[in-house]
């Protein structure tokens, strides 16, 4: 299994504030990585750099063999291969659930409408909201909306899925239904990078854990080692507070 994402010495500034400091990371195909850390530590910025929703100033980011920089002509093509699920769902409120899922396949991948709808229904069934297909996002619960957002990303048949705190905006009883859908996806062999505070999910799914603080990757370890004997003191402190 080759590596599909590679970050080399990535630095990123928001004006004067340095959000990422010398970040190095390799992700193999089908690997599942969970990133955790205190707020403001650069977790979200890191994964948003991978599909260039944020621009990095120094270093290299290589996704599926292509380098991402301001010279990248077809950044859209890379984005089409990298699905993303946001904290605030970001469904398109003017479109029905089904249309949310078929829009990008039809217009970006030029898929025929019939086929796009079949793919969409398959993915909606996978996250168990096929019966809501005709409704609009505003009529769904938060958990259902987030599962729809997951289905929407899956309809593009991405090679990599990024999750930016997918359960942070949800009521506690809805978190489980979203996590279940994500566990299913992980078992199906998707490459996933997940920013989350759900340590239960991390223990169940992640191959590797990353702990970030102040823009740096403080610790990267196999999941078992990460929870059982964390090396750095900062990680120990964080885990003691969160577990």
């Amino acid at each position: 299994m080759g590596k599909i994402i590679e970050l080399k010495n990535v630095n990123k500034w928001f004006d004067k504030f340095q959000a990422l400091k010398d970040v190095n990371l390799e992700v193999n195909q089908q690997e599942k990585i969970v990133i955790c850390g205190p707020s403001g530590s650069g977790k979200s910025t890191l994964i948003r750099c991978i599909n260039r929703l944020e621009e990095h100033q120094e270093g290299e980011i290589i996704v599926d063999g292509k380098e991402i920089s301001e010279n990248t002509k077809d950044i859209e093509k890379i984005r089409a291969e990298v699905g993303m699920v946001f904290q605030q769902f970001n469904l398109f409120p003017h479109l029905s659930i089904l249309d949310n899922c078929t829009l990008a396949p039809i217009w970006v991948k030029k898929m025929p409408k019939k086929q796009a709808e079949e793919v969409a229904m398959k993915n909606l069934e996978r996250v168990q909201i096929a019966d809501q297909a005709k409704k609009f996002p505003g009529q769904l619960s938060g958990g259902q909306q987030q599962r729809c957002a997951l289905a929407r990303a899956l309809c593009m048949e991405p090679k990599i899925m990024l999750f930016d705190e997918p359960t942070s905006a949800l009521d506690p009883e809805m978190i489980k239904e979203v996590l279940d859908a994500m566990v299913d996806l992980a078992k199906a062999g998707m490459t996933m990078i997940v920013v989350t505070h759900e340590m239960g999910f991390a223990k169940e799914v992640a191959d590797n854990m990353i702990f970030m603080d102040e823009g740096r990757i403080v610790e990267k370890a196999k999941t078992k080692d990460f929870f059982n004997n964390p090396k750095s003191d900062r990680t120990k402190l964080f885990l003691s507070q969160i577990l």
Partner: protein
Amino acid sequence: MKNILIKPSKEHLSNFVSLGGFLIFIGFFDVLANTFLDLNLTGFLPSKLSYLAPLIIGTIGLYFIRIEFSGNKLLDKINTNFNSSNLNAVLTLIVIFSLIKYIPPLLNWFIFDANFAGNVKEDCTGDGACWVFVKVWFNRFVYGMYPDAEQWRINSAFIMLFALVGASFFVPLKFKKYLLIFLLFIYPIIGLKLISGGDFGLKYVETGAWGGLSLTFIVSAFALILCFPIGMFLALGRRSNLPAIRYTSIGFIELWRGVPLITVLFMSAVMFPMFLPDGTYVDKLIRVLIAITLFEAAYMAEVIRGGLQALPKGQYEAAKSLGMGYWRMHFLIILPQALKLVIPGIANTFLALVKDTPLIFVVGLLELAGMVNLAKTNPKWLGMAMEGYVFAGLVFWVICYAMSRYSQNLEKKLSTER
């Protein structure tokens, strides 16, 4: 205070209600007598006091019947809706008395004393409105100076338009697209050719002869249809990351927004030809259409930009993360939502545009209000300004109200909220 003022109470409900009712009745009786019988019952009072007497008496009456939880449903309803405080009581009475006083004379002028029959000014008695004026000039108000024999061309152009628009509601979705393209790109050419003539054996009618309500429609329709896409691109341009496009858009918008329409029209008609090489000629109407279109496009751009501004950043990010480029993102995700948000603002701009059309009189084009203006200066019909402008005002109101209702329906139809 409490000892001096009689406090209405529930114990003496019937006493208070009959006393209050009596006072209110006196107030109303005074106003009615004053209006319809020309009787001034309070004439013995000083004139100002006499004028206000019904209001004062009525307010005192309303004070007496203001009893909370009286148990009488009608009384409670009146008290909560019209009589909840002294101020509300006064306002209620002022509104009702004004209606009694001013509605009948208005109706008299409009209908009962008005003259409808006849063909010359002398047929009007002068008591009420002289609708004969509007009747005689009606043809001109609608068609301007367009030759009578050729008016069927305007009629058929508009009938064709209505037929096409009507058809667009019924045809299946598949053909709707083609119908829309036909309506937007081919019909205007056919319509204009039909009205202006010059080919196909149709007599040429110069644009100076166009006028009246039909010209109002022509100018409004063209400007409405054209200013919308231009405004949209200007709005996107103003938010562009490319400095050249951004500053061009800002410059364009600020230039056109900063100049009064009447100046723009004047320049388009008088100054613009000076810059053209000799021998080239752009029709006056076309110049005016371009001027109004660009002027309104600048306003439209800012309205649409307001909608773009209101969309959360997440919508852009979600669209990008799905692999959409700039144009797909804007046309599929951003604009549909932004435009829906600013339907009230767009309707506002459209209404203002329709009501701005009379300004084309400065270049000698006379639409409805312009024709009224012309007709009232006709020596045979002097003194008919009121009737003319009331008529023009009513027509504009009907047009604008219809547009406003349509925009409200559209808002409801496009709403995807719960």
